[in-house]
């Protein structure tokens, strides 16, 4: 320790301000690569904008502006989605430019090479790049278990979120006109699935519940051939969540989904009167009961500030007993309303104790 202090005493006076800034920048680059990527993209866009009339500069930086902006736009939104649904988009996008390729190497490589246009067509570039990226990188181990229409609906929803998040190009307008609207008109099943996903998303269930369950199902089934039975179960799960997301205040709907692969229970803290008269105990007991029934994951959900506060009380009562709380989300429901969603995992020790008794 004293040796280290001695070294620092010798080194520190000789460190210049420039050196300190360089070290700070280096740490910043390592700690926040996504921010560096975003700032880099912004800077290049600025240079591109200022070089109007200097065609030779634009030609030189065009590739960099195109690639950096697609990467920054996609990676930023995907980081947010990954926070809600871990590992749904595990890889960041990277554009690799190709100039020439030998025929033999290209055929052997078996990869698709897509054309990207100059930056003035960036909305098209963003759309093509995003859809291609999602085709490869979205739920890489699980999407084969979804049927084609539902998978496409999920990809389109994530793509829309990417395009809406960055208004620097009109990528959403291009996507809406050229891809989304024609696809929905051509395929009524896709139209229905998009509505289902929209309902899920409106209550925060799309990324935080549905995609997470699809990913986990896929990981458990890894190496198994996709079957109609598996995709049917995933589709039924989407409809199960849709029924909950669209239910009216006093409507009772099924809140358990116990099938071959997905075993989920939902606890909706929605009735103020029930809590006022009976307290939180019925909800606590419901969580324990769902675990005993075989639910592997329990989602505790409430909409509105007051009910969300009760959920935190329920959390304190069940955490470490029948369930472990994996994640906690504050969900924007629309307008000023926010909701809360707790993702809980059944506690095996609790189950073992229950079986013994």
């Amino acid at each position, binding site marked *: 320790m004293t040796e280290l202090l001695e070294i620092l005493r010798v080194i520190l006076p000789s460190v210049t301000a420039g050196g300190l800034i360089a070290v700070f920048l280096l740490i910043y680059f390592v700690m926040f*690569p*996504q921010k560096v990527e975003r700032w880099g993209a912004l800077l290049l866009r600025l240079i591109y904008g200022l070089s109007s009339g200097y065609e030779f500069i634009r*030609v030189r930086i*065009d*590739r960099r502006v*195109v*690639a950096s902006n697609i990467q920054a736009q996609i990676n930023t939104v*995907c*980081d947010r989605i*990954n*926070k809600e649904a*871990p590992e749904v*988009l*595990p*890889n*960041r*996008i*990277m*554009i*690799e*430019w*190709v*100039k*020439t*390729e*030998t*025929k033999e190497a*290209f*055929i052997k*490589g*078996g*990869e*698709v*090479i*897509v*054309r*990207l*246009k*100059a930056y003035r067509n960036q909305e098209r570039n963003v*759309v*093509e*790049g995003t*859809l*291609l*990226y999602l*085709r*490869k*990188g979205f739920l890489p181990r699980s999407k084969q278990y979804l049927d084609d229409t539902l998978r496409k609906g999920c990809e389109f929803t994530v793509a829309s979120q990417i395009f809406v998040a960055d208004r620097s190009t009109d990528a959403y307008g291009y*996507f809406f006109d*050229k*891809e989304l609207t*024609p*696809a929905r008109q051509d395929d009524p099943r896709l139209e229905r699935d998009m509505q289902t996903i929209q309902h899920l998303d409106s209550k925060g269930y799309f990324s935080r519940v549905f995609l997470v369950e699809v990913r986990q199902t896929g990981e458990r089934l890894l190496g198994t051939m996709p079957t109609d039975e598996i995709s049917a179960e995933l589709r039924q799960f989407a409809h199960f969540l849709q029924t909950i997301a669209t239910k009216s205040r006093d409507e009772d709907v099924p809140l358990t989904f116990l099938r071959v692969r997905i075993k989920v229970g939902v606890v909706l803290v929605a009735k103020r009167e029930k809590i006022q008269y009976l307290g939180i105990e019925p909800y606590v007991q419901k969580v324990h009961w769902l675990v005993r029934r075989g639910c592997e994951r329990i989602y505790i959900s409430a909409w509105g500030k007051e009910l969300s506060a009760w959920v935190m009380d329920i959390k304190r009562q069940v955490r470490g007993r029948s369930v472990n709380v994996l994640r906690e989300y504050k969900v924007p429901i629309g307008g000023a309303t926010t909701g809360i969603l707790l993702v809980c995992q059944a506690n095996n020790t609790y189950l073992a104790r229950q079986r013994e008794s």
Partner: protein
Amino acid sequence: MKRRRDWSKKQKIRAVHDDDLEGFLDSLDLLQNLKRGELRCTICGVQVTLDNFGAVGSHNGTIILACDRTSCLAELESGDRCLDD
């Protein structure tokens, strides 16, 4: 603990820029055929030209093309359809 994405894991998208398009197609011996209007989109069958070229891929040892319609590009990437269809 906050989960961060591993920034070393990359999904590479290979792309050709408009400025390099002719040279790239020439290196694959496709340019002349394309200019003569002899190539078609594997997915929708439309004639592919330099204007509407969208992507190129390979299937069973053959080079396949897609026009610039987004749905054709997506299908080419997924390999759902091929020239033999």
